[in-house]
């Protein structure tokens, strides 16, 4: 059993809005980044069972970049997304909306290059960025 890491955020927006901003490429390129030094200049997203996504992540100074790619295994609108990253690791994202707020819980299988703490901090930073972007755009 792979080690899994969980990050979590409560966002002040209804789940319908969350779903749209989480999944539309025109929004993804604006919030998908762990820090100000990074950005996602390009995103493709085919959100359906068996569909693929590709987020191009690059350092803002252009020094380094990589493709973050995966395949969707489960898509339950407004409730649950499961995908596997190109390296085989699984990611689950639960959405629970109630009274204009949405709780997002994301669990992912750890990789072996970075420490657990580094990985948790990185994913949490992206999630926090999503929260900030969404709450500014509701």
């Amino acid at each position, binding site marked *: 059993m792979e080690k899994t890491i969980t990050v979590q955020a409560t966002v002040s927006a209804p789940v319908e809005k969350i779903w749209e901003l989480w999944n539309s490429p025109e929004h993804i390129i604006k919030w998908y980044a762990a820090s100000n030094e990074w950005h996602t200049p390009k995103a493709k997203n085919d959100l*359906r*069972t068996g569909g693929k996504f590709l987020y191009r992540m690059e350092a803002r100074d252009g020094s380094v970049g990589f493709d973050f790619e995966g395949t969707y*295994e*489960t*898509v*339950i*609108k407004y409730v*649950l997304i*499961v995908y596997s990253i190109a390296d085989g690791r699984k990611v689950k994202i639960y959405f629970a909306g109630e009274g204009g707020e949405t709780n997002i819980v994301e669990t992912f299988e750890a990789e072996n290059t970075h420490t657990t703490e580094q990985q948790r901090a990185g994913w949490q930073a992206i999630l926090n960025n999503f929260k900030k972007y969404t709450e500014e755009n509701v």
Partner: protein
Amino acid sequence: MNGPIIIEQKFASKPETVWFAITELAKMKEWYFPELKDFKPEVGFETSFTVNANGVDYPHIWKVTVVEPGKKLVYHWSYDGYPGDSFVMWDIIPLEDGSTKLRLVHSGIETFPQDNPDFSRESCSAGWTFFLCESLKKYLEKER
């Protein structure tokens, strides 16, 4: 109305009893689909079985995509020979008094051919209400 069907039902049984009722083949055949041939709560498990409804054979294909033992089960649900892409998710919610709430979410029903009344939201909703609120409820009461 395009959202998923969501049905919640409370049972006097313990959470693990409800979990086994929705994941063990012999139990599932009793209250759910007698036609079911095989089932394992394992990610990647796939099974197919045919159910006759209103004189038409519908070949069901299930593929398990999420298993959190005792808590959550998700399978992809489609029909051979028909377009459509749906998921059924079961959540077991333990209650303080030792009883159990079961939540069912069926999403993607609108992707099945909507000119066939057997695939309509009303038909699916009635089916799930029967399964959870009558059939499974009676089965679990008998098992106690």
